[in-house]
């Protein structure tokens, strides 16, 4: 087997990504075909920048989805002859190539980057969503009621914001702190917010039809409560509520901690944004109209103010996923939380940076991957902002 040149490497990588290309093309053709019926999502396809951003983001989403088809080697398999080998080096058994070279332990850089996208795509959007639920649930009343509640919550938010992020990570993610169960207690509080949010949302809307409301609320409480308990609890840790047989979701301890700290860092900023928008919107006429109609406060907040705040919130959501990706990379870069074996981009950059002057490719490839994803999200947010301003 011969070494591949750069042209051949590019070609082989393109071929490896074939399922992703097909999925991308299908998405784009379908979206452009029906774009007039798809609301804001459809309008995205009117802006070039937005489309480019969307394409990059979806590329990584599909890569994460089809990563089992895309990878060429096992992400943990080490071939000692392949240590720090250049891109395009054939493996000694003659079965294939290390398309983007080998890292310091002789693992395939290409496969690790592809597999690493899975970690990011799994954690970042969900963590951002949780942060939004926390921020919205607290920011709406703070902005709407004002007064002491606002002062108190704003003080708390500023408190967290004044913490240097890295110090906070070090304080939350070190093994000694994890041993005390503190991140799990934090998870208990933070994960409660989505359920509270949904319950209040349903209650405020269907208050006048108690029968229907009761059914939906019981369903949310049971399903949400079960998911909640199986998410925060894990047998063998400080918080073990459900027995192992009933525990549906097994989140590895360190992933949960990473997740919690990312949500914790993001929610104060979301809180501030939501509070600011609420302060602005509550002076509008339709809010006064609802107040005169005698609607209750939570109905006004969730069904009058929130839908009208969606534009800036959607844009910020995209930007914030990018920021969360950067935070996840930072955690990996300092070797916090995720296991050193993990193929996520931050950890891989951290492992590769020590040999940067001799063999840069193990660090550069994940660095470019992370950059492209965040760039895609920023472009997408820019496109969305432009299109939502046009209304």
């Amino acid at each position, binding site marked *: 087997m011969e070494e591949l040149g750069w042209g051949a490497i590019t070609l082989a990588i393109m071929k490896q990504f074939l399922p992703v290309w097909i999925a991308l093309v299908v998405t784009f053709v379908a979206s452009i075909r029906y774009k007039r019926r798809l609301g804001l999502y459809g309008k995205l396809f009117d802006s070039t920048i937005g489309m480019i951003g969307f394409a990059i983001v979806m590329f990584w989403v599909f890569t994460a989805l089809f990563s089992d088809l895309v990878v060429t080697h096992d992400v943990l398999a080490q071939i000692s002859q392949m240590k720090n080998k250049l891109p395009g080096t054939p493996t000694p058994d003659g079965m294939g190539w290390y398309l983007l070279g080998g890292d310091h332990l002789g693992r395939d850089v290409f496969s690790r980057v592809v597999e690493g996208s899975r970690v990011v795509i799994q954690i970042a959007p969900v963590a951002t969503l949780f942060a939004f639920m926390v921020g919205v649930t607290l920011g709406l009343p703070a902005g709407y009621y004002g007064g002491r509640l606002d002062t108190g919550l704003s003080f708390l938010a500023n408190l967290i914001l004044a913490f*240097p992020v890295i110090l906070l990570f*070090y304080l939350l993610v070190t093994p*000694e702190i994890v041993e005390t169960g503190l991140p799990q207690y934090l998870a208990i509080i933070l994960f409660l917010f989505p359920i509270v949010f949904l319950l209040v949302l349903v209650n405020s809307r269907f208050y006048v039809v108690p029968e229907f409301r009761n059914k939906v609320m019981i369903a949310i409480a049971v399903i949400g409560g079960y998911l909640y308990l199986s998410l925060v609890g894990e047998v063998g840790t400080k918080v073990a509520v459900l027995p192992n047989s009933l525990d549906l979701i097994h989140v590895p301890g360190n992933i949960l901690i990473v997740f919690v700290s990312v949500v914790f860092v993001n929610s104060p900023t979301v809180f501030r944004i939501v509070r600011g928008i609420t302060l602005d919107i509550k002076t509008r006429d339709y809010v006064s109209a609802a107040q005169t109609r005698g609607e209750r406060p939570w109905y006004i907040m969730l069904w009058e103010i929130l839908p009208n705040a969606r534009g800036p919130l959607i844009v910020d959501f995209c930007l914030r996923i990018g920021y969360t990706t950067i935070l996840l990379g930072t955690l990996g870069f300092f070797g916090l939380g995720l296991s050193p074996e993990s193929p996520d981009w931050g950890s891989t950059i951290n492992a590769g940076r020590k040999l940067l002057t001799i063999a*840069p490719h193990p660090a550069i490839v994940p660095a470019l991957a992370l950059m492209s994803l965040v760039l895609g999200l920023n472009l997408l947010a820019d496109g969305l902002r432009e299109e939502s301003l046009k209304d």
Partner: protein
Amino acid sequence: MLKFLLRRLLTMVLTALCLTFIVFFLTNLPPNLEKLAKSEAGSRISDEEVQSWLNKNGHGSPLVVRYGEWLGVMPGWRLEENGVTTGRCIERGQDPETAPKFCGVLQGDWGFSSVFKDEVSTIIGTRLGLTGLLMFWVMVVMVPVSLIIGVLAGMREGSKLDRSLSTFSIASTATPEYVSGVILIAVFASSMVGLKWFKGTATSAMDNITFENFFLPVITIALYGIGYIARMTRASMTEVMTAQYIRTARLKGVSFGNVVMKHALRNALIAPFTVIMLQFPWLLNGVVIVETLFNYKGFGWTLVQAAGNNDIELLLGCSVVAVVVVLTTQLISDVGYVYLNPRIRIS
């Protein structure tokens, strides 16, 4: 104005107290203390011995009392054993009678680092000096470049120049320091690409700063900030450029360059000022990453060492500095915004 300032100062002190208490709580949890005892008194000691070591060294009292001692508002602990009095404020060999009653952060006694075997205050002093140099050069590069980019992009909204500069700023905000640092080192310092214009480490810059060893760390931190400040400047510039008085000036026949320089710039630079001040806390992050990446032993590097090695007193010292820096810049940005913006100043 005075009342506003006073209220802000009061909130700031309260925030600082809360934050330091949280850090104190998190660094003084039982597992941390146990690890400290084991590293100081031997790793094979039993649980009882750990407990007695902790009691002997003043870690046995309630958390709030220990926090008060550390802060310097409670008298330091004293312990009499076999006729020898030891205590927080009594140095080895010192007569207990002459020792001060209070010794905490407020008295300037920051404790002793268990990793570097030195006074915390001296360590932080020297490290902050090194980081200060780095920050100074970052500011020198970042502020003018980002303002120029922002103003150039914002003065003609939608033009080709605007499009390309905006794309550049988006790209730079999408590149965190650990990504740009890695790429820059690989391109300009590795043997693979072969440019080797700069050095991949900044260790030698601690004694002697040269362009060769300091350019990469500075540009790495600056790059991430440039995009953000430039976008803010652009936004405020485009807003100012659509204002009535600018149109009036243009219609009167003032040249475009003059309108930008004399009429628009002053008003457009109020918002970026706040943004630049608020960048400081977040620059702290960049400093930690870049100092680790380039092995420049400044404040950020010290923070990582302290946090990674369970050096409780050094970590507390670092967080006090970090918190004070963050809160002070917030205060300056608030006051500066009020002072610069006549609409708020007069009301």
